[in-house]
């Protein structure tokens, strides 16, 4: 049904015709006949000039509608520390993920074990786990995927005995790549969980 592909107008043909009958009351004979006369021969007009370049006006438009602002009850959640309060910590190593996955790989589990040990013996520190993705995939989906990566990492640390209340997670999706190239060499580096800490 290729002829129905794409965008369609839901138009009753008669409605459209009726508009023109209104506009052209003297032409009913053509319409009643239901015969399609050939369109007139079209000679390209002599002066087809491309539309002139338009300098846009500096538009600051007044509000299109005047509706009273709706009142939204602010969401109530425990407030996590400011992200900018966390700093890099050389004792905590990144882990990495397979494409589109958020499970912890066996080799990365060993890294997390070491991270968990450091966190348990440095109980005065809060930890922020960042979940990151490579550039493939769309923004919103990668925000969800980065969230899952951070959450898997958090769950592993909690299972190793790190208190959940010390852990905050954040997803950056594909918004903060570590490595800028468009290649698997970079993508595998960008699919990661990264750790920052903050003294309690």
């Amino acid at each position, binding site marked *: 049904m290729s002829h129905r592909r794409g*965008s369609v107008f839901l138009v*009753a043909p008669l409605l459209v015709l009726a508009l023109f009958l209104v506009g*052209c009351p003297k032409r009913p004979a*053509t319409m009643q006949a239901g015969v399609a006369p050939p369109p*007139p021969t079209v000679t390209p007009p002599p002066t087809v000039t491309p539309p002139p370049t*338009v300098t846009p006006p500096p538009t600051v438009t007044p509000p299109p509608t005047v509706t009273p602002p709706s009142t939204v009850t602010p969401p109530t959640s425990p407030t996590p520390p400011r992200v900018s309060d966390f700093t890099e910590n050389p004792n905590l190593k990144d882990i990495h993920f397979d494409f589109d996955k958020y499970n912890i790989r066996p080799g990365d589990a060993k890294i997390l074990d070491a991270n968990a040990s450091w966190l348990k013996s440095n109980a005065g520190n809060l930890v922020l786990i960042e979940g990151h993705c490579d550039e493939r995939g769309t*923004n*919103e989906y990668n925000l969800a995927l980065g*969230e899952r990566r951070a959450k898997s990492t958090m769950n592993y640390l909690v299972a190793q005995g790190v208190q959940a209340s010390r852990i905050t*997670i954040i997803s950056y999706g594909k918004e903060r790549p570590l490595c800028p190239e468009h290649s698997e060499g970079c993508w595998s580096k960008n699919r990661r969980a990264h750790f920052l800490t903050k003294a309690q």
Partner: protein
Amino acid sequence: MRPARSLSAVLAAALLVVLGGVLSSPPPVHPQTPDVWLNIIGQAKKINIAIPDFTLVSGTDSQGLAKQLPGVAGKDLTFSALFTVVSGVPALPANNPAALREAWANFATAGAHAGLQGLLTLQGDRAQVEMPLYDLISPEQPLIVSKKFEMPLTQARRLAHKAADEVIFRMFGEAGIADTKIAYVSSASGQKELYMMDYDGAGPTRLTSNQSINLSPSWSPDLRSIAFTSYMGRGYPYLYRLFPWENRQPQLLAGYLGINTSPAWSPDGRLLALTLSKDGNPEIYVLTLATGSLRRLTTFSGIDTEPTWSPTGREIAFVSERSGSAQVYVMDAEGANVRRLTHSGFNTQPRWSPKGDAIAFTSRQGNHDIWAVNTDGSTLRRLTAGPGSNESASWAPNGRHLVFQSNRLGSFQLFTMLADGSEQQQLSRSPGETTSASWSPRLP
């Protein structure tokens, strides 16, 4: 057979061509004909319309609007793919019916089916244009419609957009989409900030300057606000809305632990579907804006995200990895009756057409391309086929055009196309990357 003698006859011919493609027998054209889905694109013959320079009736045209506005309206009608436009020709006489008649007759001889005149009045900071539209196929040159539009001088371009939209309404039964805006994300400043511009790329205006990451703008149906995700403030991805026409700070809509993303307005603007991970993993919720109350719609242990409402408000399409890879699903607005819509590949960014019949989405097969599928799962079709990645489609309010992002020429920039994938053309040419377009409803 006599040649066509009126614009209505040409349109009738066009419609017959279209119907001829739909029906196997000669189409009945009579009052009892039921509604028929017509694909006017690529089927009907384009209407040739002449838009001479506008005639200045009074005032001083220091901006050159009399020449500028017909160019804008002409570009709008060309963009619609329904018209062939002649503009950039001298203005018609204002108060000389015989001369006007002769001028139109000359356009008709040159092939014009219709003529649009503009009578421009400039007074203080207001601009007004009266726009008689003539049928030039009939020798009587009957007036199809004459409408008057008025705007502040600073928004004079909208006069041309309004006129073009009215011409399309008169000839095709639904107004055009020229008087609309597109909100988007640009990294031109070094950070991802929100902007908006006219649908044709004019008048880019920056909307955020918080130097964090701003994502996923979505116009409210009443045009008053744009919902978006931002890392501003405490640094977490919270959901806000900003008020592009008002001197007012963004309003926090959802600041729960985890992600607060993927805003999607219900068609009546009272509800916002969104993705929250506050209960352990990304799930879809519906926020009632008036009360702040939240209802959870999905309960899968993996990722559910990217809701989009049907234009009736009765259904929501979304992305879920419940089958093992990201696919598009549809559920009713209460979260029940989930059905799977796509079956192969990796499919995200569903966007329900404002006409209700189709859902556009982004499919990854190496690169990304935009596809569409009917809401019953039939007629899967590919709208883009590279080069590069083509993502993040947003429908024009008439369901005939889509804006999307492509890196086919290097950095991501916005492009437009017709809903069948034809007429792809570049819209933005900005430094950095230009992404995540949201096409607004029509301005009032």
